[in-house]
């Protein structure tokens, strides 16, 4: 056993007598406690757990890139309805400036157009006679007609007979005759258009037409909103549509010249001299966004129209960001519905664990890991503050009770009994409800919660302190302080309190676990910490929904594990401290 003799004596020690107290070095009291503590494996495990919890909670919040109440959104890329397109079958009317077209007229128009020829059909509405003339393919002119007279053809001779009360100038008469002879039914005199309508036999009715509106199936879309007014203008529309119908490549309107490029079912309009940038498109396909308030860009509409015209089921479109999107077209009734992989922006609820959110997100779209870190702060903080509060009250009341004894003790202990018989959870539920009713802000709520928990929980500490002081008071060293006439304050603070401290430290450590549990319970029940603040208990609250509990384990399991570990940690450390302070308790 040579190693036992390794504890060599140095010269200094050899000079001391064997029974000299200085010969053998002893462990300092602190070291003794420390050694006994670290020898306890469970206590070390507890310390490691707690160290982790503190780092996790207090450092984690700093390190975490997110705030505790940061809501995360996701852009969903589901194939959703984006736009709808329809091949227009409804006539659109463009009225001359200052004119109106009543609904009745529009309805009559729809009724009569089938019969309308070049010479026109007429109907009566709104107390006026209306004439519809076909100007081109699905292109009609609507105007109010006034009968001036009758042109009768007798062989080569035409006679113009005005209606009673009407006067027809000679110029008009001549023009009318000429028109009849030439077979044209329309002529102009002094900028006024006159129409000849075939009547019975060889007679024509002569009338003037005041063109009120044009109707067509085409729709005009401008590339630039500056041109909206121009394009919407009657003159422009009429000229443009005429040009389209007649296959011309240029037209003039409003004193400007425009070029036309024909396409299937429509056309592109350029300003004269600018063949690069189209000014407007013309199409019989109407494209609308499914969501109101969203304006689809022109080129998109054009692309849709193209695709429909080509009978394609899908097309690609380069959006404003330069990203190529693939759109698919499906028929629904008469409509074409255009689907696309749409980037929707929504709260990222119950996101599964990922690199960005290692534990996913919760029902508010908040990062669970970050919430756990901040929740840990609150849980631990509540634990410590409540523990301190409990101990403060407990030490004072227990100390007074234990030291003075007698009727003071009886009174205080009955008071403790009284306090103990207040049902804890009902009280907390009431308190929680009151705080809810007053809409206490979350932070104030925490402080109130800590105060209530502290006030409700000191009785255990008081009992322990009282018991300990009662037994210490009977110890000889306390009798000795009385016998030596030491004043009471000194007896309490110099002799009693230091001796109660170890027990209190142990009690407090063990108590911390149960306080954290209580807080978790209250928060779980929704009485404790409230959104947007988090505590472990309130995080577990998510599990009160069976769907969440079964499907989103990553929301509540980690919080549960943290609570269990922390409580275990505090209990292990408490046990370790107790054994370290008082080795007699063990074995």
């Amino acid at each position, binding site marked *: *056993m040579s190693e*036992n003799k*390794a504890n060599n004596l140095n010269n200094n020690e*050899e000079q001391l*007598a*064997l*029974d000299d107290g200085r010969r*053998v070095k002893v*462990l300092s009291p602190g*070291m003794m406690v420390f050694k006994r503590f670290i020898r306890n494996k469970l206590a070390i495990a507890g310390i490691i757990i707690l160290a982790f919890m503190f780092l996790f909670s207090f450092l984690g919040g700093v390190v975490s890139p997110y705030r505790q109440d940061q809501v995360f959104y996701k852009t969903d890329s589901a194939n959703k309805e984006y736009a709808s397109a329809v091949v227009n079958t409804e006539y659109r009317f463009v009225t001359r400036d200052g004119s109106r077209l009543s609904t009745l007229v529009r309805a009559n128009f729809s009724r009569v157009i089938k019969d309308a020829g070049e010479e026109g059909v007429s109907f009566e509405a709104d107390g006026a006679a209306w004439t519809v003339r076909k100007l081109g393919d699905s292109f009609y002119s609507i105007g109010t007609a006034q009968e001036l007279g009758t042109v009768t053809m007798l062989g080569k001779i035409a006679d113009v007979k005005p209606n009673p009360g009407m006067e027809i100038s000679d110029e008009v008469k001549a023009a009318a005759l000429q028109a009849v002879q030439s077979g044209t039914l329309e002529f102009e005199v002094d900028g006024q258009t006159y129409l000849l309508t075939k009547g019975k036999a060889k007679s024509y009715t002569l009338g003037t037409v005041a063109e009120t509106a044009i109707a067509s199936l085409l729709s005009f879309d401008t590339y630039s909103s500056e041109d909206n007014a121009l394009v919407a203008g009657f003159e422009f529309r009429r000229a443009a549509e005429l040009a389209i119908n007649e296959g011309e490549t240029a037209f003039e309107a409003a004193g400007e010249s425009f070029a036309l490029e024909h396409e299937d079912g429509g056309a592109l309009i350029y300003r004269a001299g600018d063949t690069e940038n189209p000014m407007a498109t013309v199409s019989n396909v109407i494209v609308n966004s499914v969501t109101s308030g969203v304006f689809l860009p022109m080129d998109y509409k054009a692309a849709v129209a193209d695709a429909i015209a080509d009978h394609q089921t899908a097309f690609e479109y380069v959006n404003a960001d330069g990203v190529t999107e693939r759109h698919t077209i499906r028929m629904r009734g008469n409509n074409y519905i255009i689907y696309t992989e749409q980037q929707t922006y929504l709260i990222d609820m119950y996101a599964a664990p990922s690199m960005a959110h290692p534990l996913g997100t919760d029902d508010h779209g908040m990062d669970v890991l970050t919430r756990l870190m901040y929740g840990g702060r609150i849980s631990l903080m509540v634990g410590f503050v409540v523990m301190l509060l409990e101990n403060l009250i407990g030490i004072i009341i227990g100390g007074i009770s234990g030291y003075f004894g007698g009727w003071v003790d009886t009174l205080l202990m009955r008071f403790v009994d009284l306090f103990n018989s207040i049902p804890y959870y009902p009280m907390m539920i009431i308190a929680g409800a009151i705080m809810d009713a007053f809409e206490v802000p979350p932070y104030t709520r925490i402080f109130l919660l800590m105060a209530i928990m502290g006030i409700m929980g000191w009785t255990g500490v008081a009992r322990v302190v009282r018991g300990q002081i009662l037994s210490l008071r009977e110890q000889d060293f306390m009798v000795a302080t009385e016998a030596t006439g030491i004043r009471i304050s000194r007896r309490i603070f110099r002799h009693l309190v230091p001796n109660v401290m170890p027990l209190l430290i142990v009690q407090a450590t063990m108590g911390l676990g149960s306080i954290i549990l209580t807080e978790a319970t209250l928060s779980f029940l929704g009485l404790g910490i409230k959104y947007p603040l988090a505590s472990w208990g309130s995080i577990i609250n998510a599990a009160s929904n069976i769907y969440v509990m079964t499907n989103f384990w990553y929301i509540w399991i980690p919080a549960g594990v943290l609570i269990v570990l922390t409580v275990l940690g505090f209990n292990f450390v408490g046990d370790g401290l107790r054994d370290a302070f008082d080795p007699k308790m063990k074995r």
Partner: protein
Amino acid sequence: MSKKSKETSYISARESRRISKENIRITKKLDKRLSRKHVPEQEYLTQMRDEGNVVEFDNLHTYFFTDVGTVKAVDGVTFEVPVGKTVGIVGESGCGKSVTSLSLMQLVQRPNGQIVDGAIRLNLGDKAYDVAKMPIEAMQKVRGNIVSMIFQEPMTSLNPVFRIGFQLDEVISLHNPQMGKEEVKARSIESIKMVGIADAEGIYNRYPHELSGGMRQRIVIAMALACNPRLIIADEPTTALDVTIQAQILELLRNLKSEINASIMLITHDLGVIAEMADYVVVMYAGRVVEKGLAKEVFLDPRHPYTIGLMESKPVINKTVDRLYSIPGAVPNPVNMPDYCYFRDRCEKCVARCQGKYPPEIHVSDTHIVSCWRYFEEGAAK
């Protein structure tokens, strides 16, 4: 100045760490050996040096590996307990007398306390075991059956929630599994009667707290006797008792001694009790035997200065002295003991040789052995 002394009196953290590490290393090794299962009997079978002895302690070393260093609580103790005799072990607290007896029972608090060397030969009649080498498993059959123990505190050695009879029955049936229930009870009552309790049936149904301290100690003795052990270790059996009760218990033990065939190892610090009870006396100091011999020899002709001092420092009734003799100093803390007579620093009769090594065992007579340099020449002459 005082601050400085304070610092030097405490072990440094590094030193403490070193000690702990060493302790763990040693105790682990020793513990492993003891915890083995199914150890062949041959391993701990041994031969008594003298068949007339129940126990022979041979150079026993029981160390405690503590935080402040290795405490050599028993450091080379050699003595034997003859059959039917009472050996009194006397010494002050911390001298290792209790640890010696606990070593025999293998009740030394492990893992810190370990028998590191030496042998304890226990005579079972037909064979002998070396307790120091016995695994825990085998040891359980020995405890209570062959060696039983009477503790100092009669209150704590009885379980307060069980009746006396139950506790006695338990011990008896544990070691005699072949016995029937009635038989066990009869045996229990018999052993209660044996310790001088008239109302044995009544006591059988009582709880320990209903009995006085003296009664309880009688019950503890009855329990120790219940299995007819070959050796009874009585560790301070009367220290916690009042003088008049102590007298009763001593009387009882003396009477029992002649009735039963067991040897008694009586451990006490009270020289008076030893003088009354013991046939042989072993005086221990700081983990070592300083003097041993027949009671008469040791009491009438004490040789070791420690024994002499011990006897003189105890006031004796009707023997007035003006001033008590007192051994100066205090019992040393048995950590890091040097290799010279442990008593040297307190001894007033030092000779030149005392500066040297620890004194060897010196025979001043055939039975009287003392470890003191003062008798070196005398012993060498023999």
